[in-house]
């Protein structure tokens, strides 16, 4: 067993709140990746937060293993990314097999001028351990052994009942954020639905530890040829010489029999020897069988209760969108909650819900498509699927159609006007795209609202409705031209604290920037504000 997930990191301890009813500004339920990310972001902006978790340690087993660039950029802003990228595995060679045949291989080439890699492979427990350490360092209170067993939402606060080894106690919060995972007890206690599609399939995961010299490549089989391997199989490298192996077993299986280590070893042996001709020595570190769903809550905000992460939406694991998208929820919510706590209008939080519901739909669409490709539902979709794989062996055009999961990329929030008609990837709504700047990287320069000035005059800072946008100058490099200018010769971009682009213009236009800032902080109807 691995020591990381056996060590209590936030053991239960009695707290004075258990004697005297306390009200906190923000209480977060769930110390998973999402709750901890949000807590750190709030704490760094001066908001004292309490995180309640029924457990006292990181999650068992590797769970999420693939963390995408946007996630790493968010974690870097919070001071957590460096140890993760140092530990994580970066791979760039993938092979796709169809039955006995290798259909094609690919090499992912990193684009220049990004501080963070396109993604890293890393066991979820390492991410959680790093988040716990950072949360403690910035003053977040994580109360382990605190299980929420009751919740009542009032107009001006939320009342909780929290069970502990010393018995239950009441606790109040101005705002409650439910990051309590896919089974979200808070969702159930509030009687809220979690609708969607259940896929009739079982996946066997085996984390295998091999000291042997084995290539750092991602291998994916459609219709794997090994004995009893199921409909697809995946081999993927993690740190510490651990390999994630996935077998898609189908619906009617005997779970106990499939988890028999002897049976698992037969499959793993066949897989590992298929390309190298020999079975290296290995240990089974962690095995599990899971089914999956694609579903989401209809609304992520219910008065003073906000839902984030798996509690709000669940996707199939193909495309690694669970933890990645949950961390983006936290990124979207934190700055808005800070503004509301500072006296802003609470309908700003409705934009959190609307934007992240939109993102959840996009993530569900991508993972549903990948799942449909992996498990064709009709004989005709099977015929097309197999035709794509056949053609992919000799014709490049078919390869983009092969879908074993698309890497998680941030969604582009809809509905924002574009005053520049510049490159599509940086249109309003998109997350900013990193580029190298004189002192390092663009993402390191961004704090709060920012104006990116490219070959254009702008004041040092612009103050509007209580928030300040600072100017950040971008140098005229080829990458800046490609990513931010297109055919334009100059531009100014307005970025929110979560680094999403609010608007862009060919020159500094004070009225337009002020209006965009007001819209971004939900103060559109300023005239009726006191």
């Amino acid at each position, binding site marked *: 067993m691995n020591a990381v997930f056996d060590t209590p990191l936030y053991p239960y301890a009695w707290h004075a709140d258990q004697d005297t009813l306390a009200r906190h500004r923000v209480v977060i339920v769930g110390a998973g990746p999402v709750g901890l990310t949000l807590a750190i972001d709030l704490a760094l902006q001066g908001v004292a937060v309490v995180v309640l978790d029924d457990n006292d340690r990181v999650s068992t087993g590797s769970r999420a293993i693939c963390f995408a660039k946007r996630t790493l950029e968010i974690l870097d802003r919070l001071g957590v990314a460096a140890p993760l990228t140092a530990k994580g595995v970066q791979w760039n060679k993938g092979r796709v097999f169809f039955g006995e045949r290798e259909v094609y291989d690919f090499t992912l080439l990193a684009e220049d001028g990004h501080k963070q890699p396109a993604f890293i492979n890393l066991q979820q427990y390492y991410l959680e351990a790093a988040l716990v350490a950072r949360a403690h360092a910035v003053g977040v209170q994580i109360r382990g052994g605190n299980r929420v067993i009751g919740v009542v939402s009032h107009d001006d606060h939320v009342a909780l009942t929290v069970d502990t080894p010393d018995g239950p106690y009441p606790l109040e919060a101005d705002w409650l954020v439910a990051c309590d995972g896919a089974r979200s007890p808070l969702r159930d206690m509030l009687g809220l639905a979690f609708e969607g599609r259940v896929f009739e399939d079982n996946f066997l995961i085996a984390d295998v530890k091999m000291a042997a010299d084995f290539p750092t490549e991602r291998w994916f089989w459609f219709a794997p040829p090994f004995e009893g391997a199921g409909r697809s199989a995946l081999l993927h490298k993690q740190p510490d010489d651990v390999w994630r192996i996935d077998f898609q077993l189908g619906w009617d299986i005997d779970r106990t029999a499939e988890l028999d280590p002897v049976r698992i070893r037969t499959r793993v042996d066949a897989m590992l020897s298929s390309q190298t001709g020999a079975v290296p020595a290995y240990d089974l570190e962690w095995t599990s069988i899971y089914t999956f769903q694609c579903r989401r809550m209809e609304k992520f905000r219910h008065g003073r209760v906000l839902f984030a992460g798996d509690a709000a939406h669940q996707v199939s694991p193909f495309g690694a969108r669970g933890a990645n998208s949950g961390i983006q929820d936290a990124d979207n919510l934190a700055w808005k909650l800070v503004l509301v706590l500072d006296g802003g209008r609470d309908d700003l939080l409705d934009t959190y819900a609307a934007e992240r519901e939109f993102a959840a739909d996009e993530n569900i669409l*991508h993972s549903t*498509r990948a799942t*449909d*490709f992996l498990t064709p539902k*009709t*004989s*005709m*979709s099977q015929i*097309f699927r197999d035709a*794509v794989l056949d*053609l992919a062996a*000799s*014709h*490049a*055009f078919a*390869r*983009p*159609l092969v*879908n074993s999961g*698309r890497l998680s990329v941030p969604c582009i929030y809809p509905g924002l006007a574009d005053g520049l008609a510049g490159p599509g990837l940086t249109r309003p709504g998109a997350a900013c795209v990193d580029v190298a700047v004189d002192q390092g990287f663009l993402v390191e320069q961004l704090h709060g609202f920012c104006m990116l000035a490219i070959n254009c005059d702008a004041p040092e800072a612009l103050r509007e409705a209580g928030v300040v946008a600072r100017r950040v100058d971008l140098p005229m490099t080829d990458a800046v031209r490609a990513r931010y200018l297109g055919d334009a010769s100059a531009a100014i971009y307005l970025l929110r604290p979560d680094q999403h682009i609010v608007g862009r213009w060919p020159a500094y236009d004070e009225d337009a920037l002020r209006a965009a800032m007001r819209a971004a902080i939900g103060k559109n109807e300023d005239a009726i504000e006191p």
Partner: protein
Amino acid sequence: MPLNLDPNIVDPDGFYDDLLAAHMGLSHAESDALNARLILILCNQIGDRDVIRAALRAAR
């Protein structure tokens, strides 16, 4: 114009979705018939007999 076997479809996943959606709810025989009609329509769009012959060879 030679036969293009390089990627040429914008949003390949969306295209694939549309293709499968066109078959939704059809029996296998109905799906076969749809495919035949689709091939004929696309061949007419291409028009160029050399390109169609090259495509027939690539598919075989």
